[in-house]
């Protein structure tokens, strides 16, 4: 695979905020909790200082302020690290934003293991599980720059609470911006194949694509389906691919408890029992280290995905037994 341009999706977020404001969306206000340089809301602050409010290191209050602004007709984007946005302020998101269905967009950066050096206290691998469990909440985990920009726009256009998880780590931009369209609740088939369906989300999608290339060299055709919207899940896409491939693997930079893997497994369990394997963080905390070293250590790279797929396809499909 040729070397691709790499962009961190937090940069996509900051740039898209500015673009939306420049397009005349005067209802957008941006809140941050002393992490604007890291979450990239600083890009908005520099252009629109009158519509940017630093809330200090006080995430709970920030979410409540966002709810109040939304009740007055503004469209607030509230940002912090995923750990503090969804962990520290869970009750506020649930009760002050989601229960009243207020139009607040929570965009959290530094999600997952790829935070790297900061270690377990900052490597939030349960945010999708927390946000998914809240009624009225849309949960989006974009896979690259193109998708992240489109997701921020879609979140703005959507009336109601949305959680978007963006990444600190620069990752390959594999979508073609001229051909790409994003719709909340729609999954995207990236490769064709019938040996196994791989559902991936966030920065694991580019790894899954690399794995698919490696598997093809070994004669295995992998169907990679990118799932940017964890909730609402594209049930039709999941069931269709499971029906055609008969074996399912999910890959996410998140706990296997409560994330994409659980969402897919629950759906298949109820509607179409299919053998399923879940790659992700296996019910453990993260650890310090350079991002790619940590991802390797936790088995979340193209190489680990390739090995897992080859292991799975050695077992016969249910209809081949």
């Amino acid at each position, binding site marked *: 695979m040729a070397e691709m341009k790499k962009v961190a999706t937090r940069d996509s977020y900051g740039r898209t905020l500015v673009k939306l404001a420049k397009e005349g969306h005067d209802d957008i206000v941006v809140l941050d909790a002393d992490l604007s340089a890291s979450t990239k809301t600083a890009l908005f602050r520099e252009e629109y200082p*009158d519509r940017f409010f630093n809330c200090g290191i006080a995430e*709970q209050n920030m979410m409540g302020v966002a709810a109040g602004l939304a009740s007055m007709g503004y469209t607030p984007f509230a940002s912090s690290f995923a750990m503090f946005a969804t962990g520290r302020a869970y009750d506020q998101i649930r009760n002050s934003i989601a*229960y*009243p269905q207020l139009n607040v967009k929570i965009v959290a950066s530094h999600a997952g293991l790829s935070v790297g050096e900061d270690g377990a206290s900052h490597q939030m691998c349960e945010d999708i599980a927390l946000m998914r469990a809240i009624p009225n909440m849309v949960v989006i985990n974009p896979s690259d720059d193109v998708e992240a920009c489109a997701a921020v726009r879609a979140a703005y256009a959507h009336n109601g609470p949305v959680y978007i998880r963006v990444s600190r780590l620069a990752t390959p931009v594999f979508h073609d911006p001229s051909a790409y369209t994003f719709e909340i609740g729609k999954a995207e088939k990236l490769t064709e194949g019938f040996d196994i369906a791989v559902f991936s989300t966030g920065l694991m999608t580019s790894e899954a694509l690399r794995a698919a290339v490696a598997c093809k060299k070994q004669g295995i055709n992998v169907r990679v389906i990118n799932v940017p919207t964890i909730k609402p899940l594209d049930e039709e896409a999941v069931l269709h691919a499971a029906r055609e491939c008969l074996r399912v693997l999910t890959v996410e930079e998140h706990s296997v408890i409560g994330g994409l893997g659980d969402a897919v497994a629950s759906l298949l369990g109820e509607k179409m029992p299919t053998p399923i394997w879940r790659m992700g963080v296996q019910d453990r905390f993260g650890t310090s280290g350079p991002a790619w070293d940590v991802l390797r250590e936790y088995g979340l790279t193209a190489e680990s995905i390739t090995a897992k797929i080859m292991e799975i396809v050695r077992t016969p499909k249910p209809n081949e037994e």
Partner: protein
Amino acid sequence: MTKQEVLQLKMTATRVRMGIIEATHGARSGHPGGSLSAADVLTYLYFREMNIDPQNPGDPERDRFVLSKGHAAPALYATLAERGYFPVQDLPTLRHLGSYLQGHPNMNTVPGVDMSTGSLGQGVSTACGMALAAKMRGQDINVYTLLGDGELEEGECWEAFMFASHYKLDNLCIMVDVNGLQIDGPTSQVMNTQPLDDKMDAFGFNTIVCNGNSFADLEQAFILLDRAHGSGKPTCLLMRTTKGLGVSYMENAVDWHGKGPNDAEYEKAMAELRTAYEQLEKEVERSNG
């Protein structure tokens, strides 16, 4: 205020108290103690202070009220019903399956409720957001929020106070219903929050200490709120109140924080409130005469 106006407010507040008893009796649960302590300030807000119109509850130019101590929902509902937002007859459906009068305020089901609350400490943050929005738009809107003194044990309150002061929200009025009791006992014993006046001063508030069960005091306090406009300082009313006020056996009684009256208790409470109401009627006649 004239003596007649004070008497009229007292009569309204007594009807609000009857509504609280009707609602919590109908629910066989709910929070009568902290509702009764707040009945007077809610009456003053909705009948004298706030710029609101029950016929147009969604008016974007209206003043906003957030019941941060959301468990006092019976007081808010009784006040809104008395003010004409919805029928008083609906109050006993409080907490019933299918009723729009949820156990804690829901802005999407109850006309006149500006924010859903219930988890303590959160309402005050949303009120900050509302006050900030009004400032950004240059709207002449006051935002009022009522907290309990026990609620101040939640750290989020102090985050919100810092925010209000930092962003100079002088259109924000934080009102603390200092009835001195919380579920597990006196606030001074469970987790002392005093001295509140020093703390609010230190957080940059225009701090006013008053009797929250006295309409004369409340009138003076809200005059001081008006004067704070343009000062850059948010206002804090520290209102001394009596929990359970108006029903003898509920007054200052910790165990009436969170339970509804049974039939006998209901009859006794309503009889006391009716007697108080009749006395007020006589006073009105005398002062007219």
